[in-house]
Structure formats: structure tokens, C-alpha cells
């Protein structure tokens, strides 16, 4: 891997790694979401340094070039994290639904109590 390529990849990877940690520190990103991102940026740091690992993985999955291996795993990562988000959004929708229903039922009960009090006074 040419030195220039290595420097570009490493600086992007280190930037992402630090960004994720910083977001967690500022509580803008929850720990549970940080894991996948950190693992990916770690892989992006390790693979250019341990270039022979990348070559071995490339042979293993039958890819033509080490760069396509990197792209392939990048794409895989995006797919996995998106499915994860879809699952999460489904769960959140369900929770919002329950909250909205609970809110409506409680509001109805509260209004009934208030109406009764108004009549009594």
C-alpha cells in the first residue's frame, strides 16, 4: 500500500475514532451505538498497518483487490447498522404508540375527574 494512501486512510480512521469517543463523552451518542462505529474505525486503522492481513482476507473472500475488500466491508457495515436502526425505529414506534394511547386514556380520566369536581363546587 503506497504511503500516501496509508496516511489518508489512517487520518480518516483516527478522526472517526476520536469523533465517536468525543460524542460519547459529550453524551450526544449513546454507548450502545458507539460500539459498531468504533470497531469499524479500529479495523480501518489496523488493516492498512497490518497490510498482509488485508491481503489474506482478500484471498479468503475471493476479492480481486485489497481495496475492494475494504469497500466490501464498508458496505457490509452500512447495511448492518441500517438494519439495526430499522429495528430500533420499529421498537421506538411501538413505544411511542403505547405512550400516546396511555396519554389519551389518562387525559380522558383526568378530564372526567375535573368535570366532576367542577360540578361539586
Amino acid at each position, binding site marked *: 500500500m503506497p504511503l500516501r494512501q496509508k496516511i489518508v486512510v489512517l487520518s480518516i480512521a483516527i478522526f472517526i475514532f476520536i469523533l465517536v469517543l468525543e460524542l460519547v463523552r459529550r453524551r450526544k451518542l449513546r454507548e450502545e451505538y458507539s460500539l459498531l462505529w468504533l470497531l469499524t474505525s479500529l479495523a480501518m486503522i489496523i488493516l492498512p498497518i497490518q497490510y498482509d492481513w488485508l491481503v489474506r482476507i482478500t484471498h479468503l473472500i475471493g476479492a480481486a483487490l485489497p481495496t475492494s475488500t475494504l469497500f466490501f466491508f464498508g458496505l457490509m457495515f452500512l447495511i448492518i447498522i441500517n438494519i439495526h436502526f430499522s429495528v430500533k425505529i420499529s421498537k421506538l414506534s*411501538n413505544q411511542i*404508540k403505547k405512550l*400516546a*394511547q396511555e*396519554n*389519551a*386514556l389518562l*387525559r*380522558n380520566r383526568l378530564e372526567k375527574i375535573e368535570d366532576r369536581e367542577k360540578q361539586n363546587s
Partner: protein
Amino acid sequence: METERTIVIIPSYNEEKNIPKVIEGIKNSISKADIAIIDDGSSDNTSLIAKSLGAEVIKLPFNMGYGVALQTGYKYALENNYDYIVQIDGDGQHDPRYIEDILRELKKEKVDLVIGSRFLANKNQVPFFRRLVIQLFASIASFLTGHKITDPCSGLRVMNKKITRFLVKDIYPEDYPDADLIIILHRAGLRIKEIPVKVYPNVQGKSMHSGLRPLYYVYKMFLSVLLTLFRRDY
């Protein structure tokens, strides 16, 4: 013996024009029942009008869709210990005079759910394409349940507490609860019957099935029916 209590639940979204007629119709048809409007985040005066007409109002904080509104009604009915739950659409397409008949049928036949079918009486009440799609899923539901189902998405239904207890669970399919729901209920051992009803064409001319939604509906229903067969948690 304690008297049996009935509630009519009406999911409504921006129905201020139709709701007075629906509520009056229900009052004339069945006097002993309570009426609850589930206002699905309307931006008009649906809630105020319904309340002034003596209906109970349960107002969702934002528009959540027909199924969620209905389930809110089931939850209300269960919380308040009603024995029979009637559901009717807020757009005035159903004639409330049928409620009494359907309720009688439920008690007489000892079934858990009676559906007012638009197709048992006169098929031409529903536009052609919608009818085609509904009948496709009706035949799938009939095939899978072994009972003749003609109108799995009718909004006029009467059910007992047993069904309601089932419908408040998380497994309730809240976007378009119809053919898949019938299959789930059948698999859970609940008894379903249909009787013919007539409907008026939607007074306001708007429908929840417009634009690209019918396509999504067909997709959702196929997937949901198929996967229902592979689930064990009903």
C-alpha cells in the same frame, strides 16, 4: 345479576362534519350503550362536538392511524370493564341501525366477533378495484380459517370482552388490521361470524386508501398473512 354494558367506539380523524350524525344515529339505534370517540389527533373540532353531544372523548396527541385509534378504544373498553364493544367508522358510511342486529347476532350465536359485511348483501357498494383487493384477501382468509369470510376490513364490528382482551396486546397489527387479524383471531380459537350490512358512500369523499397506499396495503397484507402462519405467539 349485573347488567351487561355496551360501548360504541368510533375512531375519528377530522370528522367534525360527519360525527354529529353518527352519534345521533347510534343514540337512536341503541340507547343503553355508552359512546366513545377516539380522536386520532384531529385538527378540527371533532373532540369538542363529540363531547357536547355527550360522547366520551379519548384524544390521541397526534395522528397515529386507524388501527392505533381502534386499539386505544379497546384499551378504554377493557379498562372500564365493558362486556360488549361495538366499533363503527367515524365517517358516517355505516348505518348505525345495524348495530342492534349485529349485537343480537353476537349474543344469539355465541360467537366472539361479528363483522358487518358489505359484500354479503350487495357487492356494488364498494368501488371495483377496492372490491377486487378485499375479495382477494377475503378468499385467503376464508381458505386459511375454513370459514366463509367476505369482508375482512369492514369497520363495523361487534365483539365481546374475550376478543378485546386479545386485541389490546402488542401483537395487534395496527397498520391495516384486517385479513391478518382475522387469521390471528381464528388461530387463537376465537369464533367469528359475518352478517350483511349496507354502507353509504363516504360522505366526504376522502379515504384512508388513497395515493400509493393501496400498493403498500397489498404488500403489507401479503407479508403479514404469510408471516402470521409462521408465528406461535398469538
